[in-house]
């Protein structure tokens, strides 16, 4: 049995997807599952129903697609330099994302848990600072506003 395990080679995958369809934690988790891994860590970002006393009914996302995908690839590459992870999946939804639905799912698998837990944190923090994706909050009172992440590396809240 040990001999068979030596022969098994599994190429590490970076799976990046943008879609208007509803995201599934189960599907994304399956993509990074591996017999070599004892840990899968996940981050799921969901639409919150309030901001500064206003009722949020939905978020609307847009992205500069080829660059967003490339920036996420760079993040995957950074992760692989820092931690021994196996597979990485980043799924981001575009268009309307109603309250409590997922806008982003990040899944990372690794042999032991420390690597994937740290890698997932790094991935979401860096995505919020660097990847060209925008969200607009749609409020109940028919107004809306483009959000900005405090992590955004070039714009300060002035």
């Amino acid at each position, binding site marked *: 049995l040990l001999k068979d395990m030596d022969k098994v080679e599994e190429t590490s995958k970076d799976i990046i997807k943008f879609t208007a369809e509803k995201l599934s934690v189960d599907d994304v988790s399956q993509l990074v599952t591996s017999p070599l891994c004892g840990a899968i860590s996940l981050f799921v970002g969901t639409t919150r129903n309030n901001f500064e006393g206003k009722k949020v009914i939905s978020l609307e996302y847009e992205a500069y697609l080829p660059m967003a995908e490339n920036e996420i690839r760079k993040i995957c590459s950074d992760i692989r330099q820092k931690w021994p992870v196996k597979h990485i999946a980043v799924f981001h939804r575009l268009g309307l994302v109603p309250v409590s639905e997922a806008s982003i799912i990040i899944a990372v698998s690794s042999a032991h848990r420390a690597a994937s837990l740290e890698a997932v944190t790094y991935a979401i923090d860096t*995505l919020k600072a660097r990847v060209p994706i925008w969200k607009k909050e749609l409020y109940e009172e028919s107004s809306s506003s483009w959000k900005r992440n405090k992590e955004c590396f070039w714009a300060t809240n002035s």
Partner: protein
Amino acid sequence: VEILYFAKSAEITGVRSETISVPQEIKALQLWNEIETRHPGLADVRNQVIFAVRQEYVELGDQLLLLHSGDEIAIIPPISGG
């Protein structure tokens, strides 16, 4: 070169993209001024945006850009992904 507008900047200009003619060598800030002349409403976001030139971030400053026909330059307002 092709200028791409996103999020708030697209709402201000009313367009998602347009082709403009600029010198092959131009400072980033000068390029911004060219664009702002065409869309004065963009003055509101001048201090918040960054460029992406051929998909690499460039601040609106003194950096000299070497542009080629067909290059893509995106106006990137503060991001809010995730």
